[in-house]
């Protein structure tokens, strides 16, 4: 580690690989159904990255993230339908609103810890859910708002799924990149320090409250952005996707992928969503009736199993196995995502140094 020359870090290679795969997917043919699923995976990835930052790095918990998702969706919907703003304005406005709300509640709410924090976020999430259904003049009540226009940026209207696919994933990739940058900077180090020992982190000059608030605001803004994109995709919003159930689902996706690594977000989301779809396809063959119940049971069990046996999540679990068995290197407890599974292989292929 005495070589301080700049070399392109692993994470750029990993991101490049991901982008390449995503770009190629529609080219090699995929059904409209798969495309829709991929769009939702992209949307949920954006939210889940924020949740990984909040839970895995800042060590907090939020059982109300769906509220920010909904807030973003409703903001976009309301300004474009009731006030006839141009659709692309919805995106920054949603982020500003969700960021602002998060900023206001951050300090009081992070005085709570652990279970109490979980309950408080749950409560706040529920209050937003009630607002979505009760403030009917603004939000259209339980039936919601329809007629949200397609997103159009500089005259280009994103009204086809394939276009939206690229848009959502371009944004997701940028969000992922920004988050990776944050983690590998002094901010990320400070976050890990907070995780290990708050008092020692403070003694090095880390303003923990401010940092936690910043991460919370970022995670809220990501969720708001995703909500905005969602509204312009399905062109209507109603309260039902934004309740406790979805907040839990987000936590599931983050936990399954791995809380302490933002790479956990796309993997966790993909695993959960694809598993849902697979169950839905397969289950009717075993049971007479629909499969929604079995999905629910499977989720619950999957969640428990992952948190009991691979609490660090799938991504780190796999890379840990790779490094321990194949490379025989000692693993630090909860090291971050430097050791992504594929990268050493890739580097050998391209015969790069480092």
């Amino acid at each position, binding site marked *: 580690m005495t070589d301080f020359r700049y070399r392109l870090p692993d994470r750029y290679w990993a991101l490049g690989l991901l982008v390449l795969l995503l770009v190629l997917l529609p080219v090699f043919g995929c059904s409209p159904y798969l495309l829709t699923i991929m769009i939702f995976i992209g949307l949920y990835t954006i939210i889940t990255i924020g949740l990984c930052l909040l839970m895995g790095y800042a060590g907090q918990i939020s059982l109300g993230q769906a509220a920010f998702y909904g807030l973003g969706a409703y903001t976009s919907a309301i300004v474009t339908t009731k006030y006839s703003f141009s659709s692309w304005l919805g995106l920054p406005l949603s982020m500003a609103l969700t960021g602002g709300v998060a900023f206001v509640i951050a300090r009081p709410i992070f005085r709570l810890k652990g279970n109490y924090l*979980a*309950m408080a976020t749950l409560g706040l999430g*529920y*209050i937003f859910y009630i607002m979505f259904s009760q403030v009917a003049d603004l939000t259209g009540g339980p039936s919601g708002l329809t007629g949200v226009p397609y997103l159009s940026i500089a005259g280009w209207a994103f009204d086809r799924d394939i276009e939206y696919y690229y848009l959502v994933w371009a944004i997701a990739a940028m969000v992922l990149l920004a988050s990776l940058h944050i983690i590998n900077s002094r901010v990320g180090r400070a976050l890990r320090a907070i995780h290990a020992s708050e008092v020692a982190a403070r003694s090095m000059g880390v303003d923990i409250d401010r940092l936690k608030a910043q991460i919370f605001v970022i995670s809220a803004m990501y969720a708001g952005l995703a909500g905005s994109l969602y509204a312009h995709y399905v062109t209507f919003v109603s309260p039902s*996707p934004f309740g406790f159930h979805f907040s839990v689902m987000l936590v599931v996706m983050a936990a399954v992928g791995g809380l302490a690594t933002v790479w956990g977000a796309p993997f966790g989301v993909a695993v959960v969503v694809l598993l849902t779809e697979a169950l839905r396809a397969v289950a009717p063959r075993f049971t007479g009736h629909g499969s*929604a119940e079995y999905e*629910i049971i499977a*989720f619950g069990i999957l*969640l428990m199993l992952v948190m009991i046996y691979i609490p660090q999540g799938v991504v780190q679990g796999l890379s840990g196995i790779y490094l321990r068995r194949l490379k025989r290197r000692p693993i630090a407890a909860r090291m971050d995502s430097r050791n992504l599974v594929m990268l050493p292989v890739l580097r050998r292929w391209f015969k790069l140094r480092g």
Partner: protein
Amino acid sequence: MGVLQASSGLYTQLEISDNFKAGGAVVAFQDQLLQYVVTGLTTGAIYALLGVGFVAIYNVTGIINFAQGETAMLGALLMVSLNGHMGLPLALAFALTVVIVAAIGATLHRLAIRPARNASTVALIIITIGASIAIRGIALVAWGTNSYSLPAFTGGRPLHLWTAVVLPQSLWVLGTAFVSVTGLYLFFRHTMLGKAVRACAVNRLAARLMGVNHDQMGTLSFALGAALGAVAGAVIAPLTYATYDMGAMLGLKGFVAAILGGLASAPGAVAGGLLLGVLEATGAGLISSGAKNAIAFAILLIILFFRPGGLFATRRDASGGL
């Protein structure tokens, strides 16, 4: 996106107050108040039972059992099946229900909590959430999305207590809750096993040195918590519709009851539950029945932000179990 947008029905159908409203006639406020109190004590007793379950589990294991509400749901639905559908006698159905749900609670601890010995708080929260999801799914398979009703334990006409109407089932609720809480109290104070559980809650290491097996105590506390939940669900079933997703709100309100009492004290949870019930019923009567859940959440947030140690605490304690 199927399950991702599946029913997030967080509303119970506890509309007792509607049963009681004197049809149409204008009723004086203080008369209404008595009715609210009566109604509120009934629902409050349910919250109290769930709250005591939370407290018991938390004090022995340090875990907030997010699946607590589901035990009430199972209690209600099992009663419906055993007593209503299969026609078993009331007492037998009740006993079986409590035993089965207690066993489920114990199994939850053995299979899901014990293996995750060193898990972080976040991981444990997620594990119990996963359990609650799985249990809800199993209930969905077994009972579907239907709402079931159960006849009251005893027939008979509503009683009149001054200006308030009291259903016989309410008396069952209050009576059963009282018996349960008292029984628990006696158990903890006067039996060796109960004292062992308390020892575990107070000082784990010392208890272990005295030969108390902490894991077994944990399992027992989960069983007790589940039993309390089952009792709550079983007695409330005739008053409300039993359905697979009634657990979520009940669990949450039980938690509010528990933290009103400071999470460290069972009597506090009882007081908290009763208080919450009365406040909720009064609010529902004065504002609207849709406000019911909002009241519970409002109280939750107020307590968490201003008095995390509970109403009876002397100092602020916001550590939340860490």
